[in-house]
């Protein structure tokens, strides 16, 4: 495992809703790390995962895993996806609808190692559903099956593309725990795409911040995110759900990560770049908030 460092140096021109952009990524990822790719839609996160998996071909560059070259434009190498030994989990589960849970998981396993499959089913709490078809499962259970199936291949890498974004908050937390557990058991190098800052802090050993096709930061979440860059000690992240005009200012309604609703005033210079649905940080000095015993 020590040798299985992923070395990425890839470029690809993308055409997105925002226009043309060159995705250009140079980074090495150590074996066993759990790295969360964080960035806006269209920043290139999914394309990067697909290039590692071999589902999208880079315009230029190399992808090396330990001593193996998976892709090299200079040497004309492009290893097919099935040879890359990767477990891929998608947001929409992508299970085989006509197969039982057991067979879905076993499908990923070349040797049909029954003991290992049973162990996976047990680890993901799926033993009692082994004979059910995916349509009889909840979203959270389906994603557990998808995770177990991906791990069944004993992959060198797990690539998870927003695996939890279709699930509601409670299920998401328990699936996050399962991902952490699976990672600590298998110690498989894992790349996970997420939009959710809370998820980044829960899961990531390292976060790769991608903006406009470039890496804007790579390191521990604490070091990458702003907590440290802004002196304000009260920091809440959330989503703007409503903007109302009041006299000469605006009243924003923000739903926080903890599902609390807060109201905050904003002025013309703020509002120019804010729209409903934007993720924002609301911050204040440690001095300002008042505290009351409940």
């Amino acid at each position, binding site marked *: 495992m020590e040798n299985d460092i992923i070395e990425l140096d890839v470029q690809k021109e993308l055409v997105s809703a925002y226009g043309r952009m060159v995705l250009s990524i140079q980074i090495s990822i150590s074996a066993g790390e759990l790295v969360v790719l964080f960035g806006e839609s269209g920043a290139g996160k999914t394309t990067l995962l697909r290039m590692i998996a071999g589902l999208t071909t880079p315009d230029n560059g190399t992808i090396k895993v330990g001593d193996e070259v998976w892709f090299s434009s200079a040497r004309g190498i492009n290893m097919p996806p099935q040879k890359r030994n990767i477990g891929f989990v998608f947001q929409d589960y992508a299970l085989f609808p006509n197969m039982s849970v057991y067979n879905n998981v076993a499908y990923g396993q070349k040797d049909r190692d029954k003991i290992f499959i049973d162990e996976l089913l047990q680890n993901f709490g799926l033993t009692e559903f082994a004979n059910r078809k995916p349509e009889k499962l909840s979203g959270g259970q389906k994603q557990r099956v998808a995770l177990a199936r991906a791990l069944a291949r004993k992959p060198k890498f797990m690539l998870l593309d927003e695996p939890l974004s279709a699930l509601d908050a409670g299920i998401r937390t328990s699936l996050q725990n399962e991902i952490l557990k699976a990672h600590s058991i298998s110690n498989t190098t894992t790349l996970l795409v997420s939009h959710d800052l809370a998820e980044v802090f829960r899961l990531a050993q390292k976060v790769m911040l991608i903006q406009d096709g470039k890496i804007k930061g790579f390191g521990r979440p604490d070091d990458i995110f702003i907590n440290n860059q802004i002196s304000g000690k009260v920091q809440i992240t959330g989503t703007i759900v409503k903007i109302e005009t009041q006299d*000469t200012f605006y009243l924003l309604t923000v739903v926080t990560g903890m599902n609390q609703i807060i109201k905050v005033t904003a002025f013309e210079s703020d509002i120019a770049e804010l729209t409903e649905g934007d993720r924002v940080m609301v911050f204040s000095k440690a001095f300002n908030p008042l505290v009351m015993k409940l």
Partner: protein
Amino acid sequence: MNIIPAIIQTITTSGGVVLVDLHSGDCPLSALLVDADKLPAWLTTGQQVLAVFKESELSIAVDLSGKISLRNRFPCIVRSINRGELLSLVELSFGEHIIHSAITTRSVNALELTTGTQVLALIKANEISLIQLSTQNYQPKTINNKLSTINSQLQTINPQLKT
């Protein structure tokens, strides 16, 4: 949000309380912070940072006399006033920066503010937050969007700075 670039002059700490004295152009300003942990690396003398504060915390004085505890006093000229029924937004030139103060329309009338009035904008040190000015790390979009303006202002504060 008002954002003005400034350079840290001195940092005084006592326990978890940190008083940071800065200069924006030739105007001194102070920010009072709470930081029980180690100070972040960017909070050092000579660093360029952004001082940010809310429009509603910025007061306006005309012909200020007597003694007052506020140390942050920015000489400004009124550029325009957006009068609301209760609250007005006063746009001010502070050197080459534009800042805004939200005060009651009643106060705008009492101070007889009009375009061109010379005023002092006042804010308590504990209302000012500081933000790291970094080209490497993640920046909130609000800061990113303003970086080009901020950079040109920094050039004038500190011409030898390369951006």
